[in-house]
């Protein structure tokens, strides 16, 4: 039995560390869960104990309930659990997101959670971590996915808002409450007043409350005067697409912001006015550079493109296997809507 097998096991409930007696982002209720970040497909209900980063703690409490049994540590600090040294390292995905590093008798496993290698204006940037075994995501694991720089993206979004304003239109951006919303706020900061949906507003308050500074926003509520929001910026969760609340926005111009917008067919599918390629996951080059930087002798691939990405890694001489998990965009979309309890009326 290899050392890695002592340290991690892939079970029905999730990725398990038998030595440490804890799970990583499990999808069924367990005794002890170590959580990479606050997205609903990674941080789920029903765990007896949670451990996460300091920056994620308030987010998890906000989403899963203040009564959960939760502890946190800061990035790059460690805690030893049943002899296994556990530490969190920035993943550059969303606020508070981390890669989880496990070390036992000199053998190191890193679970990436979700990550993005390109820096943005708001998330703690990704830091590569050396390891023997690397469990990586592969949401955008095809060479067609290449992201623009944050600056180029900022210009693109802001010029869209300006054009809308010239045509007397109100710009509405869609993105998940955790991650995409704060990223959009940072990209649009200084452009004009930014209004956010209540789900985002509440989450923002939680994040600010834990000492993280966010760009200034206002609450977008149904009773706001049309004139007040005319020509301004609104950020809302994707669940609001096509909702009644949206119909109350005067002269609306809608934009979906997601890595999937890279493909024209997806842009048209959404029936919106614009589709911007804004992703909080790594692009193809990002995935490859991240895997290489770990120096891992064994890679496991989760999320979406695992078949393609692991095949490619093997071809370039990195031993990789597919790992079927319950993570991914579709699980996220469903879970986010439930977690946020979003009212679309």
């Amino acid at each position: 039995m290899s050392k890695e097998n002592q340290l991690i096991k892939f079970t029905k409930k999730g990725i398990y560390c038998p030595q440490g007696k804890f799970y990583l982002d499990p999808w069924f209720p367990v005794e002890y869960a170590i959580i990479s970040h606050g997205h609903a497909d990674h941080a789920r209900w029903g765990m007896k104990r949670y451990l996460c980063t300091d920056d994620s703690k308030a987010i998890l409490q906000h989403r899963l309930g203040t009564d959960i049994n939760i502890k946190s540590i800061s990035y790059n600090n460690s805690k030893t659990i049943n002899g296994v040294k556990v530490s969190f390292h920035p993943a550059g995905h969303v606020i508070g997101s981390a890669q989880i590093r496990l070390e036992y008798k000199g053998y190191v496993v890193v679970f990436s959670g979700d990550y993005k290698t390109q820096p943005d204006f708001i998330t703690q940037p990704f830091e590569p971590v050396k390891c023997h075994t690397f469990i990586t995501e592969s949401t955008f694991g095809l060479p067609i996915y290449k992201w623009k720089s944050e600056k180029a993206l900022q210009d693109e979004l802001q010029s869209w808002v300006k054009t809308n304003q010239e045509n007397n239109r109100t710009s509405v951006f869609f993105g998940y409450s955790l991650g995409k919303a704060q990223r959009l706020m940072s990209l649009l900061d200084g452009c004009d007043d930014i209004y956010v949906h209540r789900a985002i507003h509440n989450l923002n308050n939680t994040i600010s409350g834990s000492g993280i500074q966010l760009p200034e926003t206002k609450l977008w509520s149904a009773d706001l005067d049309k004139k007040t929001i005319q020509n301004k910026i609104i950020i809302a969760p994707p669940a609001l697409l096509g909702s009644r609340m949206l119909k109350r926005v005067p002269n609306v111009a809608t934009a979906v912001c997601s890595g999937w917008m890279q493909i024209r067919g997806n842009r048209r599918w959404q029936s919106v006015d614009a589709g911007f390629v804004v992703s909080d996951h790594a692009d193809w080059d990002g995935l490859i550079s991240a895997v290489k930087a770990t120096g891992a002798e064994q890679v496991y691939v989760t999320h979406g493109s695992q078949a393609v990405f692991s095949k490619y890694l093997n071809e370039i001489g990195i031993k990789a296997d597919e790992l079927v998990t319950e993570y991914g965009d579709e699980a996220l979309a469903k879970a986010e809507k439930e977690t946020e309890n979003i009212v679309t009326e």
Partner: protein
Amino acid sequence: MKLFSELISTIEITNKTNAKIDALVQYFKTAPDKDKLWLIALFTGKRPSRPVKTTLMKEWCMELTQLPEWLFLESYSTVGDLGETLALLLPEPTHQLDLSLNEWMTELKALKPKSDEDKKAFVLEAWTGLDQQERLIFNKLIGGSFRIGVSKKTLVNALAKLTNIDANQLMHSIIGNWDINSISFEELIHGKHINYDNSKPYPFCLAYALEKKLTELGETNDWIVEQKWDGIRGQIVKRNNEIYIWSRGEELVTKQFPELVEAFSNFKDDFVIDGEILAMKNNDVLLFNDLQKRLNRKNVTKKLLEEVPVGFKAYDILEFNGDDIREQPFENRRKRLETLFNSVALPEHVKLSFIVDFKRWEDLHDIRNNSRAINSEGLMLKQKKSPYHTGRKKGDWWKWKVDPLTIDAVMIYAQKGSGRRSSKYTDYTFAVKKDDALVTVAKAYSGLTDKEITEISQWVNKNAIERFGPVRTVKPELVFEIAFEGIALSNRHKSGVALRFPRIARWRRDKPASEIDTIETVKQLITAP
């Protein structure tokens, strides 16, 4: 190409026809003359032939990117469009090329006779000098289809908005014979090269679906009943020895149906006739699927003319020797039409739509139910005194279609759609039971809501048991009610039957796969003609 590239981006993202029209109008207001002409040429299929083979483009892209072929194909299957896949895979541009649409098209035309090396040098130079969106357009200009949701009609409506010229005239102008090098934009839209007085059609008179009891229509004597045919509604315009064929989509389709042009030149009189263009063989009407093979072809080959001969069933006459007779009662127009058709010897594929003989309203039920046997869609009821209305008007004309046939089948394959739906599984293959196994009976890709498609796509991702290119074999679990217009025995199909216009009537979440139909029960739906 910046302007053109922006136009394409705007058109692509919106599904509102008005926004498309506005973007086109804006382009026509700002673009150089020759670029405008190229836009019209490209959007109406007047494209020069492809100067570079797609296989070469794929090869050069793999060489540039150093990607293995399987990964290229995997990308292609996700994107669903070759020109776009290339544009996304290619590395960042190293320089900036800024040529107008006309300059690109001129260069591409000149490329055709050159050697593969020269072509490669040219294409690589372009690829490394254009941004992603421009590159995509460049690839499309080389020869991929420019299917971006702008029909000839939308284009014409934009031109009409810009110029206030009659839309049908514009349609004739842009479809007529013109050459980019010997006409200006102004000359083209004013129809310098055509004679619109000869081709001008009338708006079609359209019927509503029957919404009352037959007996409520009054006396059977006041009505004329015809079979409803499912082809392309068309107007044959013959004036001053010229013949034009207009489709109901307000497109000029004369060139697509040479056998009709030939048949109608037998007449001495001038006229405008309304009727149905149908695929016909030995007097029998064929399926619409057959007719489709004849549509939107750049060239109608001799082989195609033999394989799918086209005929015409005349319904009505709107103009006779220069007189607009649309206000005359239908029974008079019908007589006029009969006299006209009896005045010359016509080939057997051009005929009058026959009138259904019936005494009492209840006789029509059987006739309607038997429509399918002759590939008719049902019945048309027309009030004898009715004028030829402009557009849709309630009361004088009714269509009474046959009910669709349905079976319950299970999904066995799913494939991603192309274009707008390229990220979702939208094309499904369905099977019914044959002994202990399953046998494919139909492919269908319409009838579900966007929400259902999203849900099914997620299910397919989880339940694919085999992948073959873009096709996923899935666990036979999801049951659907498949509706179709007709069914016939077929030895070209493994199941032994061919369904006509299969579509998804609904998702039977309530039914387990064990309760789907068997091939025997499906065959029982066939009524001997």
